[in-house]
């Protein structure tokens, strides 16, 4: 049996970290560490001397890891985001899923693959959940602006709600814009005029 792989996961959110670690452990012989604190990130990672580092692509602290990719960095083994051969395809898939992976140079692709595949699948699920959450939040905000715009029209023109809404929709259609954008423009303009 090959020696275990050491994987470091950089993730601030505790629930997300647990979900990722659980999934990775199921791939077998891996030793997983989680780092949640961004300060001194490169040095904290170096302590574990990992074979693979995983971090959310949207994490602004990701740039702190780039120091590891320079040979003279704090790690004695150079780390590279894998780019060649079969691993190149993995890297592309990883970027699309929203996880960036740093892998010790020269590590065989077949050893990395199960871990990266699992990470990709897990990050995809987490990303989808986050997108849905954002969409819900945005929809709620848009709803509020549209309601305010409706209210302004009802008051200014003395029309009932359904007519105010129809007017918003008609204007949006004529101008080839989204109803929410027309509503926002109206609310902003009315704020300026009042």
């Amino acid at each position, binding site marked *: 049996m090959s020696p275990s792989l050491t994987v470091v996961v950089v993730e601030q959110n505790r629930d997300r970290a647990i979900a990722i670690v659980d999934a990775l452990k199921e791939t077998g012989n891996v030793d997983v560490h989680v780092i949640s604190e961004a*300060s001194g990130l490169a040095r904290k990672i170096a302590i574990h001397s990992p074979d693979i580092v995983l971090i959310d*692509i*949207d994490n*602004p*602290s990701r740039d702190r890891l780039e120091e590891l*990719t320079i040979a003279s960095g704090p790690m004695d083994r150079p780390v590279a*985001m894998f780019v060649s051969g079969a691993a190149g395809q993995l890297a592309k898939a990883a970027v699309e899923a929203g996880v960036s992976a740093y892998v010790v140079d020269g590590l065989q692709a077949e050893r990395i693959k199960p871990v990266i595949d699992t990470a990709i699948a897990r990050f995809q699920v987490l990303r989808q959940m986050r997108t849905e959450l954002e969409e819900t939040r945005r929809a709620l905000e848009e709803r509020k602006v549209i309601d305010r715009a409706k209210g302004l029209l009802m008051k200014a023109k003395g029309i009932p709600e359904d007519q105010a809404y129809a007017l918003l929709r008609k204007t949006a259609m004529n101008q080839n814009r989204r109803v929410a954008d027309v509503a926002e423009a109206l609310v902003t303009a009315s704020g300026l005029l009042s």
Partner: protein
Amino acid sequence: MRTVSLPIAYMPLVDAAPLIVAREMGFDQAEGVSLDLRAAPSWSSLRDMLAFGHVDAAHLLSPVPVAMAMRLGGIATPISAVSVLSLNGNVIGVGNRLEQRLLDAGYGFDFHDAHRAGAALADAAAGEVVFGVPFPFSMHVELLRYWIAGTALAQTKVDIRTVPPPLMAQALAAGEIDAFCVGEPWGSVSVDNGVGALLLPGTAIWSCAPEKVLAVRTEWAETEPHLLGGLMRAIWRAGRWLSKPESRTTASEMLSRRTYLDVSPELIDRALMGEFTISARGEQRQVDGFVEFFNGAAAFPWRSQAKWIAHQLAGRNGLDHAEAGHLGGAVFRSDLYRSALAGTQAELPGASEKIEGAIPAEALVPAATGSLMLPRNVFFDRRVFDPSGVEC
């Protein structure tokens, strides 16, 4: 008119202005393209978005594509820097502890003299200083290293660490770093948060440093020359608009919007006007040419600029200078710039290389047609870099 949508990645910084202005003022539509601007969470993600084809173009730190061509860092997709988006625009600042020591020593924070600032900081640092920079491959690192090597700081133990710009003020307050070199508005944010003071503008080290470039995959530039041409002309128009003094206030308002930088327009004004508040005590300093998008053929990607960067990187990483100059120099595509901007009013220099650091005052030089005024181009130590003689 039908336009082609181009996904473009940028970092929310003052020097993303040419892209944001091209979009907001509709210069893109006039050139038959539509810029779909996407803010990136970090420089490494931005580089990956470009390298793996998620975007067609990007606002990129000028040393990144040069380092990639030299096989430094992780990714080696061939990238072309087709124009310089901005010259200069960085500030060096210190945290409260060093600020107090500098004040106690009677340092006047002239925000101008790099020799004196280096000497004063070396005394105040008492042997050791940790700088924060946005990225390991950046003009920030190059300017810092060049400055340190040529001043009393050469005897100080200096550590340079990567800290994302929006977290710079926080890292300073937490004592994780003692000082920083960062692009605006993040230096001014540290001042306004009361955690630091500004020591020098980047121009005090090199008055004409290529800061950000418009980067595309070389393969994309070859496949889509018409789209690239439209994009470059739209950005050139944006630069021309930005160079008008009366545009500055509007530009600050545009950049400050929530979808872009999401900071107060007053903070952005400081960089665009070159009028800085350098400390929490409200001291004001004026800097000429703090950030330049247009004048003096600022957007022209001189091969000598890329060679200067390659020369610095080669020196630190123990690589062959001649080969580095060859690989790195080829990244700045003066040829593509000339073909895309031919037929516009853009000033095209007669040469594609110049001796960097050799223009002590504005100078008239031959252009492709007529002549053009090149801006002051000096290093603080008055050395020059001749791209044809790599051993300088």
